[in-house]
């Protein structure tokens, strides 16, 4: 049972090697790995729900000397989301790269990315986190550059530099922690860490590094070009999972390990930045001329929402209200992950079909692809936060927390952000209506359209209506 943890890392890694060695069978390997890993993630989720926190000591060494893998409700949920998104994107990618020579380069990197994501989410060791961050960053950059055009290369290079800078700052923080507390194990650290210059500056360094990678306003500048010019399945995973993974780390640090160290003033910084991100990202998304850029800026905005939770969670006393808000944060993140990946996949279909993704000229394409348009609509609903999406529940709790904490400013930001999100979503959806001939069948490319549709539907209907277990799972924490 407990082996699921290591298999979550080992299997994608092994498959990555296998696809490099046996490119002819790559698709089969990837799909079976994806299915197996998804089952694995589900098993882990189940195990966490029934047995509580999962701990795996690699090499049999106690955590501290060795490296421990840990899974609590939060990481299990994110792992599950990653599995769902990657499974769907893998199926999609198998059709997307159907006759493209890039395919052989794509699969190993894809699986390495998955491996690094899982490793990051499971890691219980600060330095190991640094290594996983680098693995994640490099595989993401390699994937993002696959498009091969100047714009993609430029974006990838910038992405790489930012990622490296972020990792380096993170490592500097880790160094300070090791200097101050003599440990790298997160569980041990959360016991010994105390407010003071070491903790503060270490946290600051790590946070800035991670925020660079998470693309929190104003450190988001690299994200839109990178996410906007990568191949569709890559964009999906970058927006849905990669920034989420680093966000997960910020959350882990601020809300879990360093929660005693964080002051209200400090917590309001991510809040303010998040608010700015919501407004600026949404505004830019509204002005974007290309679909992918729109989606990318929407990611900037959506990440802002997640950071709005920080001052509120800091302000709320431990108890039911805080737990509820925490669940809201997680479900918002999960919903965004699923919805955004669905959106990017759908955009990819449109882009492939029409050869461009300029919003102004979408009319015919959008109408000839009803299922894809429907997927965009569904994910748009989740991005706006309309019911019954999971984001609705997330925003509900965000607002509720703002009201409970008496921090009214965020309420206004959330309202404006929601309206802007609606504006940019429906700017696109407007193109779906017209008197173009309706295709005979609503679904034309099953392997591409269904994954997009299912991801979006999952975000919009699944998480919204069946999201209650998230709160249950979050009670299982380190």
């Amino acid at each position, binding site marked *: 049972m407990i082996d699921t943890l290591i298999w979550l890392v080992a299997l994608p890694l092994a498959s990555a090697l296998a696809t490099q060695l046996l490119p002819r069978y790559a698709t089969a390997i990837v799909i079976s790995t994806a299915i197996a890993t998804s089952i694995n993630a589900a098993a882990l989720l189940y195990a966490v729900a029934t047995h509580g926190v999962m701990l795996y000591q690699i090499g049999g060494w106690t955590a501290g000397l060795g490296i421990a893998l840990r899974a609590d409700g939060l990481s299990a949920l994110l792992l599950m989301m990653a599995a769902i998104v990657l499974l769907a994107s893998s199926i999609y990618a198998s059709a997307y790269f159907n006759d493209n020579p890039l395919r052989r380069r794509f699969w190993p990197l894809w699986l390495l990315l998955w491996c690094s994501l899982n490793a990051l989410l499971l890691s219980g060791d600060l*330095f190991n986190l*640094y*290594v996983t961050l*680098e693995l994640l*960053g*490099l595989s993401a*950059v*390699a994937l993002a*550059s696959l498009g091969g*055009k*100047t714009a993609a*290369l*430029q974006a*990838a*290079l910038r992405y*790489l*530099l930012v990622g*490296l*800078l972020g990792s*380096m*700052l993170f*490592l*500097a923080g880790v*160094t*300070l922690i*090791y*200097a101050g507390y003599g440990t*790298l194990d997160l569980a041990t650290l959360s016991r010994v860490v105390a407010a003071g210059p070491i903790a503060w500056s270490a946290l600051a360094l790590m946070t800035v590094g991670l925020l660079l990678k998470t693309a929190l306003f104003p450190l988001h500048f690299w994200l839109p070009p990178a996410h906007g010019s990568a191949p569709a399945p890559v964009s999906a995973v970058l927006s849905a999972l990669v920034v989420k993974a680093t966000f997960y780390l910020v959350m882990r640090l601020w809300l879990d390990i360093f929660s005693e160290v964080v002051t209200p003033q400090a917590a309001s910084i991510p809040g303010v930045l998040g608010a700015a991100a919501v407004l600026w990202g949404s505004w830019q998304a509204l002005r974007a001329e290309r679909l992918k850029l729109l989606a990318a800026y929407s990611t900037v905005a959506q990440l802002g929402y997640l950071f709005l939770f920080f001052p509120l969670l800091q302000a709320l006393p431990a108890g039911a209200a805080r737990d509820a808000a925490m669940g809201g944060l997680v479900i918002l993140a999960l919903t965004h992950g699923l919805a955004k990946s669905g959106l990017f996949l759908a955009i990819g279909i449109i882009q492939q079909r029409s050869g461009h993704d300029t919003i102004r000229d979408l009319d015919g394409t959008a109408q000839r692809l009803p299922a894809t348009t429907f997927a965009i609509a569904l994910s748009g609903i989740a991005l706006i936060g309309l019911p019954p999406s999971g984001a609705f529940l997330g925003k509900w709790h965000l607002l509720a927390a703002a009201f409970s904490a008496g921090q009214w400013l965020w309420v206004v930001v959330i309202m404006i952000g929601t309206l802007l999100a609606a504006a940019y979503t429906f700017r696109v959806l407007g193109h779906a209506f017209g008197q173009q001939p309706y295709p005979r069948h609503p679904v034309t490319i099953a392997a591409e359209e269904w994954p997009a549709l299912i991801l979006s539907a999952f975000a919009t209907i699944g998480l919204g209506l069946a999201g209650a277990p998230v709160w249950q799972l979050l009670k299982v924490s380190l």
Partner: protein
Amino acid sequence: MLTAHWLYGLSGCLIMTFGLRAVLLNDSLLQRIIALNVMGTGVFMILITIAYRGPDAAPDPIPHALVLTGIVVAVSATALALTLIRRLTEEQDND
């Protein structure tokens, strides 16, 4: 605390911030990559300094191991970045 700690810790911090400044401000992509490497070196220096326990005591091996890993990671990233730059310039030449 040893003098070596003072000296090398301080210079590690300084080298790191030099590097950071250059990453943020430098124009050339290549120099930015170098700056990142320098910055990493600064961090490594801090780690090695931490590990140092005086001339006679055995140093803490863990930071050493970490730095070793760090160096390899840095060179991987550098290689990838350089290739990217090369491809980019090629593409721009083609354009």
